[in-house]
């Protein structure tokens, strides 16, 4: 019988670790899983172990020379200077022991999710260890070594010959995936992110629409710093609905970076838990409307791993399983188990307290600017319909 959803996880996924003080920390996976188990939403039967991607599979999205460099660097055979042109050995993406093996496992995890969905073993699949959307063909960037989504999309094309819609709600632009499929009319990328005026990677302008045959299959929705929930969700809902209807994908991959929250140290979007309750709901609905349910969700950014990510990511799994959106107090045993590890006091409920922060002075103007941006970004679709 087809399962509703599978949860891809192996403890080895936590091996993707740069250092104890590095902001990218996959302890998030453990915290999320434990939270879901504590509310009885996740059982061991739901969990499918990760697998390691082969070199051939990784090469679907990456240069062989680059793969070789990552291997050697992780085995202590190269100095940071020798890796410089590959973007590794930097403060963002330092060298760590067995970095190839750890990265290949995250890619394999997403491929595992793909196979479960595309072979009809499960309607949906979640790999929170994936979503490393900044990885480039021959270069690491922004904490990302291999780009599991890029590899997974190529894998879907080769093995299952399907049209893929990639939706990226990480606060940073999904540049690696966008550029990989910029010329490809059979892959549509959609990214909603804080404008690149200040934030990394600086790209993701509305004018980036694809190239050649792929023109019109890249969509970017750069939103302003201090966007807040309402404007974020307005943009998300309209963008995603219209692009689904325009592109009509066979399968959807969502990248669920959880770094648009007010608490996130790297970004300035001022979102709250509300956006993380809503994002998976619409993705789920549209996956059923257009893709016969075929929905693969991966993780991504999220740098407040204590107060934000576990709650935000839990909502994806409960939504996949048609469980009611958790609300009210968080399980006491979970709070007690982890509070002593956390440098900050937990928010003890699924919802954020209101208000979470002081009102933003130029709210109306920011919303107006975002709405204007949405019109520009969707212009190409709306014109066609007229």
């Amino acid at each position, binding site marked *: 019988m087809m399962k509703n959803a599978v949860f891809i996880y192996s403890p080895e996924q936590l091996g993707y670790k740069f250092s104890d003080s590095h902001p990218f920390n996959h302890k998030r996976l453990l915290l999320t899983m434990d939270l879901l188990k504590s509310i009885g939403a996740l059982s061991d039967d739901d969990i499918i172990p990760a697998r390691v991607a082969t070199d051939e599979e990784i090469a679907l999205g990456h240069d062989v020379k680059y793969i070789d460099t990552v291997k050697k660097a992780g085995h202590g055979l190269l100095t940071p200077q020798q890796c410089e042109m590959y973007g590794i050995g*930097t403060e963002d993406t330092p060298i760590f022991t067995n970095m190839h093996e750890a990265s290949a496992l995250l890619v394999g995890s997403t491929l595992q999710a793909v196979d479960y969905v595309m072979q009809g073993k499960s309607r949906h699949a979640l790999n929170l260890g994936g979503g490393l959307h900044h990885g480039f063909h021959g270069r690491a960037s922004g*904490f990302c070594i291999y780009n599991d989504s890029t590899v997974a999309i190529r894998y879907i094309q080769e093995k299952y010959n399907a049209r893929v819609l990639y939706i990226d709600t990480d606060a*940073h632009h999904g540049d690696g995936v966008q550029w990989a499929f910029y010329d490809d009319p059979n892959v549509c990328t959609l990214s909603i992110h804080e404008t690149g005026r200040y934030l990394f990677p600086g790209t993701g302008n509305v004018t980036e629409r694809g190239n050649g045959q792929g023109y019109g299959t890249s969509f970017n929705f750069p939103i302003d710093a201090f966007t807040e929930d309402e404007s974020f969700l307005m943009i998300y809902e309209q963008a995603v609905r219209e692009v689904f209807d325009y592109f009509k994908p066979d399968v959807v991959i969502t990248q669920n970076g959880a770094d648009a929250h007010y608490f996130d140290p790297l970004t300035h979007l001022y979102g709250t838990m509300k956006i993380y309750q809503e994002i998976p709901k619409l993705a789920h609905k549209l996956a059923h409307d257009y893709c016969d349910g075929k929905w693969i969700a991966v993780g991504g950014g999220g740098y407040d791993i204590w107060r934000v990510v576990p709650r935000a990511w839990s909502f994806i799994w409960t939504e996949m399983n048609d469980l009611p959106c958790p609300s009210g107090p968080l399980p006491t045993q979970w709070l007690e188990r982890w509070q002593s590890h956390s440098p900050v006091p937990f928010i003890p409920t699924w919802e954020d307290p209101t208000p979470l922060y002081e009102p933003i*002075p*130029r709210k109306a103007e920011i919303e107006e600017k975002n709405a204007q941006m949405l019109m520009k970004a969707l212009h190409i679709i709306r014109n066609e319909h007229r």
Partner: protein
Amino acid sequence: MIIEEIMNKDVYSLLPSNTVKDAIQLMKEKQIRHLPIVDNRNFLVGIITQHDLKNILPSSLHDHEQITYNTTLDKIMIKDPLIGHPLDSIEDIALTLYESKISCLPIVTGGKLVGIVTTTDLLYTYIELTGANKPSSKIDIKVTDKPGILSNIAEVFKKHKANVLSVLVYPDADDANSKILSIRVQIINPLLIIEDLRKEGFHVLWPNLPGIEL
């Protein structure tokens, strides 16, 4: 940067003996707004702009004899237009275009037409200078307008082995004694750099949105 590096070298031009009709067709076909006029040795003798053509064209409903369309360009072109040299700096050219309120400059050497620069090319250069051509974050820092500051700031970036892609210095609209430094740096996590800059007493604006203080 000099004009030679950004000018269009494949220039579409016409002869003085070509007609208004030829000019309209070529502009339409190549989607351009300016046509230098050269003699048969490629010496620049004039220029025609889309704006000039619009001014002389009668309504298409009235001109049955097509007199205007068959007029030769030597009768209507601007003779001895302003020109630039391949070695001119981009700043010079920008100033000329701005002050003369024109939108294009033929580039001439030895009397011959070798290129053309328009405001669009200058805007593209601006986009390249200020934009993110590589994945990067931008940090704005408000600094006192005095010597040595840039070096102190550069030390912090060096310490973090962060690759700086561009640096812009512009006046602070609110304070004549300070400047805003806008630095594009190849890093996703600028927090450690920002922390160190603040420790050194620098006023980091990140992000910098007037009316909103973090």
